[in-house]
């Protein structure tokens, strides 16, 4: 079993935004790993490991489209426990998600993977597209927004609890497949692989890398491809028309009674 996990670097969401003309200025940003990709890697690791046993049930490969010398996030995921990495050397900030999805799909095909796990979205653009597009390109079944996942190895299938607007939808899909994960996938009991005891309690959230894992990360193999070598020509179906900061919130008003508040809500805000 081979699991490919997409991982992306994003400008640190905790930093305040800077603008340069009509665009967001990321020239001085600190780049960090997308949090949902941490959950995706955690999901893959929980599937792959057999707690209490040295065997691994799957190989976990992290894949990132990024400039090859800006791979700190890849190192971080290798430190966390992924087995190896694949980098598609390109300036991903200039690409649309269809191109990224094509690159990911091509890596998936060449590696002969059985499962693609992605974070449901990246915190910078919040596109929520790559996994779905890749599934389409690969013509594979998909389950997006996974909050729970059970791998039935006998049936070679996944049963996925999907968080949808009106509750949780459970669906079973055969492998190979594509899954995108949501926040709750990293709760202590969300992922089961049929090998690790079902009642095993993982710590909440994506795991911390061990110091040993960090020092080993650099010894792990990372292949670097170019888009051209993967036979993908960047498309540009999406153009950025402009970026502006949201309007500053106006100062609040203090009213002297509940009655005034109700009146204002009716007459000024017109919300009642």
């Amino acid at each position, binding site marked *: 079993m081979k699991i490919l996990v997409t991982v992306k670097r994003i400008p640190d969401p905790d930093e305040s935004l800077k603008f340069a003309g009509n665009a967001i200025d990321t020239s*001085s940003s600190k780049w960090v790993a997308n949090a949902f990709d941490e959950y995706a890697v955690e999901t893959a690791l929980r599937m792959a490991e057999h707690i209490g046993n040295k065997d691994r049930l799957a190989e976990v490969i992290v894949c990132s489209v990024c400039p090859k010398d800006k791979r700190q996030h890849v*190192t*971080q995921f290798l*430190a966390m426990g992924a087995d190896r990495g694949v980098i598609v050397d390109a300036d991903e900030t200039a690409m649309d998600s269809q191109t990224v999805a094509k690159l990911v799909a091509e890596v998936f095909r060449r590696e002969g993977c059985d499962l693609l796990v992605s974070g449901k979205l990246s915190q910078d653009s919040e596109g929520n597209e790559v996994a779905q597009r890749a599934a389409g390109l690969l013509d594979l079944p998909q389950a997006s927004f996974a909050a729970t996942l059970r791998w039935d190895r006998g049936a070679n299938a996944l049963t996925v609890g999907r968080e949808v607007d009106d509750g949780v939808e459970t669906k079973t899909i055969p492998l190979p497949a594509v899954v995108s994960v949501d926040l709750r996938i990293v709760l202590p009991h969300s992922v089961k692989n049929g090998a690790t005891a079902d009642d095993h309690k993982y710590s909440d959230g994506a795991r*911390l*890398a061990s*110091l*040993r894992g960090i*020092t080993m990360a*650099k010894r792990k193999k990372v292949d670097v491809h170019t888009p051209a070598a993967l036979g993908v020509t960047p498309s540009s179906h999406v153009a950025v028309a402009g970026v502006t900061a949201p309007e500053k919130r106006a100062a609040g008003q203090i009213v002297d009674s509940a009655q005034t508040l109700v009146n204002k809500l009716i007459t000024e805000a017109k919300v009642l």
Partner: protein
Amino acid sequence: MSTPFRVDIDDVEFVFFEQLRAHERLSALPAFAELDRDTYTATFREIKRMAEEVLHPVDRIGDRQGCSLDDEGNVTTPEGYKDAWDRMAEGGWIASSAPVDQGGSGMPRAVAMVCNEVFTAACCAFMMYPGLTAAAGRMVAAFAPDAFRDLVTQKLFTGEWSGTMCLTEAGAGSSVGDNRCKATPSETEDGVFLLEGEKVFISGGDNDLVENIVHLVLARTPGAPEGTKGLSLFLVPKYEFDAEGNLGARNGAKVTTIEHKLGINGSATCVLALGADRPCKSWLVGKERQGIELMFNMMNEARIGVAGQGVATANAAYQYSVQYAAERVQGTALMRTRDGEARRVPIIEHPDVRRMLMTLQVVAATTRAAVYRVAFNEDLAHGLEQTEPKKAEKLRQRMDLLIPVLKAHCTDLSFEMASMAVQVYGGYGFIKEYPVEQLVRDSKVQSIYEGTNGIQAMDLLGRKMRINSGALFMEWMADTQRELQEAGKEGFGSQAAAINRAIGQLGASAMHLGQLAGNRKIDVAFLQAVPFLKTFGYTLLAVEALDQARVAKKLIAQHGEERPLWVRKIAGLDFYINHLLPQAVAWAKTVQSGDESPLDERVFT
């Protein structure tokens, strides 16, 4: 609502990557050739997460609960400590810089110092256990006999067992040579010594974190001379063990009391009775009467470790204060005090609060830089030992000189900074709901253990200043003055000149004390040991402030933008020069005053 704990990893990275360029220089050493900037960045990120998610959550509860002791001498640590310990051990954080083949994680000491500092800021009481365990491990690795060296080293570095250092006795604190603990060769078992005596203030003397504990105990063998020269070092396990590490009988080292303290309540400070209710078996580490020499070997490392605790407190104090000050609304801006309608402002807008925050900020930043630099020099010295022994030797001598200064100055300042954080908070700082009162209590011990700060000053004056007739000190002055000249060329002329004047005063103070000693007025000279150390300390940190500002200025030019961190470094230098450096000059004046009043026999009779 309390103030959240926060680690400013950007500042850590500024010192490590920009100021020391540690990643580049370390990669030239074979031991660290594989580690690169990405690896260090990943490490710092996990350090931050460990601190915020694993260690800080047990900080307050440990303070409130403290430890407890049962009749069998077993200590129960606060809730959550065991889990935190397991996660430290699992992650390989207990001995981050110990060699991998010994169970450590093979990181540079500079990184171990970052761990020490950031983890201590998160929970200093907890960190006593891994800190002493790693220290004991290093002693065992270096000096224990073949029979159990590898086994015990591995057990300690991986955190399966824990370790303690047992020097202090009720009558032997600063004066270790007055140790009375007795070691008698066993009549029945070869190589075994039976210990009798009582050790006090033993940190982690017992705990429920691990299955076995090894104590490293100083004791005197029959016929050994009085004083430090007669002391030998022994390994005393809580449970005896075989060659595979399987545990056997309970040994006769038993905790009889745990102290109730001002702070670090989660750390069990124990009275350890040796051979009181059953024989206390022990095994010699190193040779007989070599005990103090072995301890000295580890002393620099232990002292710089405590300096790092001081850095931790200063940084935690700054981080808490700056967050609180941005949120606490009180009063109006100074220029609008007469306007009753004026907007109420967060206290961070008041000049005096800004002055306090700036003090906290520069002390936090400069002590951090100074302490990381020493740890980093230790890596370089270690790495250059074979290829460039002269350079390595010079680095080590520099450390010998600076370590007492840093141990004492960083820990005096840390307590001051904790107190200043309380001042920033005002009344709420005094209240237990907020974290800064605990910082005050927890940090006080830093100036006491590992050699009181008074003892550090005596070490500086009585030993370090005299090595090769003061050559270490003269070299430091010359190197620093060269740096000042460079800074002058980069537009920092006036600041460099101010620091140069302080160095002049420091030099004059040293001369003055040298003359007193030459005239056999030793007691008058030692009266000024602490003032001299303070002169040195305030000057030394000024040099770090200058170096940080130079680095920041270059970064600003290079990136064409003024990031807040860099601006803080440049403003921090001016603040340091005007608010803190004058203290160096003032202390120098004290040193050279010739005052003898405390020695007047009539004042304290």
